[in-house]
């Protein structure tokens, strides 16, 4: 069971039970819906931009598994106040870590993302960890769209 404890670390369980920024935003600038047809995870993500273009607020609502919900919750904290460019760079970093392409440790300001690294050993669950992130990128790309992990 120890590998399960590693996959479902305290922080994941905590964020899945009490997701941060699990709310609708007033007058969001961007939004997108993500859907993982395999397990039925669904997420609506909204973004407000500050005057300088930074992602000043991110909110989401999800019906999803623990890994997906925790990942969305930690995303909202990690990317708050980041520029669009930084957000895309962090997405790439996160994506290549959970798919096992990159094994370097995260820089200290992204350390929270470390809890998802175990997901790389569960290929069917990688999509759960990345759904919120794909959804955010979709929102940035299209201003409004539907993201899918397919």
């Amino acid at each position, binding site marked *: *069971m120890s*590998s*399960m*404890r590693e*996959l*479902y670390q305290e922080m994941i*369980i905590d964020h899945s*039970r009490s997701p941060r920024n699990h709310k609708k935003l007033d007058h969001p600038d961007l939004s997108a819906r993500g859907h993982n047809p*395999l*397990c*039925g*995870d*669904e997420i609506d993500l909204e973004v407000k931009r500050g005057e300088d273009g930074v992602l000043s607020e991110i909110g989401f609502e999800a*019906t*999803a*598994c*623990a*890994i997906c*919900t925790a990942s969305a919750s930690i995303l909202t904290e990690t990317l708050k106040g980041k520029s669009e460019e930084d957000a895309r760079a962090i997405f790439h970093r996160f994506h290549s870590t959970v798919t096992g392409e990159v094994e370097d440790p995260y820089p200290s300001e992204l350390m929270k993302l470390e809890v998802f690294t175990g997901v790389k050993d*569960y290929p*069917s*669950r990688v999509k*759960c960890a990345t759904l919120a992130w794909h959804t955010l990128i979709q929102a940035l790309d299209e201003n409004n769209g539907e993201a899918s992990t397919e």
Partner: protein
Amino acid sequence: MNAGDPMSLNVHEIQKHFPGLNQQVHGHRLVYLDSAATTQKPVAVMEAVDSVYRQDCANVHRGVHTLSERATARFEGVRKVVAGFLGISDSREVIFTRGVTESMNLLANTLCHLDSGFQPGDEILISSLDHHANIVPWQLISEKMGTVLKVIPCDDAGELILSDLDQWISEKTRVVSVGHVSNAIGTVNDIDTIFAEARKVGAITILDAAQSAPHMSISPKEIDCDFLTFSGHKTYGPTGAGVLWGKKELLDRMPPWQGGGDMIRTVSFEESSFAETPWKFEAGTPDIAAVIGLGAALEFLDSMGRDKVCSHETRLLQKIESALKSMDGVNVVGEPSLRACCVSFTLDGVHPHDAATIMDQNGVAIRAGHHCAMPLMKRLGLPATIRASVGMHNDEADVEALLESVEAVREIFA
């Protein structure tokens, strides 16, 4: 299980037929509780498939050389095995398809042209417990033909509501196509009542037997339907072959579906004439080895005694259901009065997908998801469930392992 009782299955002996069961998953004995998705395969099936490629590898219906004659004889022989399995006398009523999905697409696309064809406003009736395979083909054909898709609703127990069937079946109803057993929650539907009402208005009746064929005796004569279909890979056979049975007088009147080789009598560029039933519906080279494997699977299933298999599985399902119900925070989905195939459940505070990963880590293979029955999940207000489905090889130890793995999930999420 009481091995000495001639009326009960010797499960220990049966397990020896399934080499796939004899392995470790994440350091635990594999406990396979996903037969509703596809069954494990017995040695007899593997040997049948293997021998096709080793000795009788040839195309069917088109050679006079020895190998082709052998392959053809074995392939056509399976039609008789299927006829025996279904208790029908004319094996020309047996059409080989890839499975239920292909059978339903064949039926939707040919019945719509039968006789005067579907007219706009004609109705097709399915049920709210049905698999996408019995929903989407009728939706597609309805878009094309202007027919209206109607759905028999279900109650909170997961049973179809049949008290006001006349609301759903009328002179406009052309086809009534329903599943025998729900793959999502295990309800055995009262198809006798539904089909009796359908016959009164002369509607064509179709039974999706995907989840009943492996678990109980099914005979189209007793059921009194026009078509019946099942998938070989859920009845211990290989993937790639399934069966569509239909009444010959209907099949004869139906147009072919796909065109190509094997289904024709003569072809000129002006017109073609078609082979007879059933070959008219079997265009192109079929999955010969899979069909021959299917024959071996049905013989294997019959040799175990289908009534014994049924009562063994029913006992296991009752055990699973009552054990799950006695656990705190476990919710069994649906409470059908007759159950086969599976038990579906949810755990408080745990998404089924997380549960599936943890249970797999304990060697327990179950399915988490919507089970290709999204409308039903919506009706029940659930995004997904955990489904434990049984096969003839499952035993009490498997039930114990299932319950332990559920405990393991609850520990992680405690």
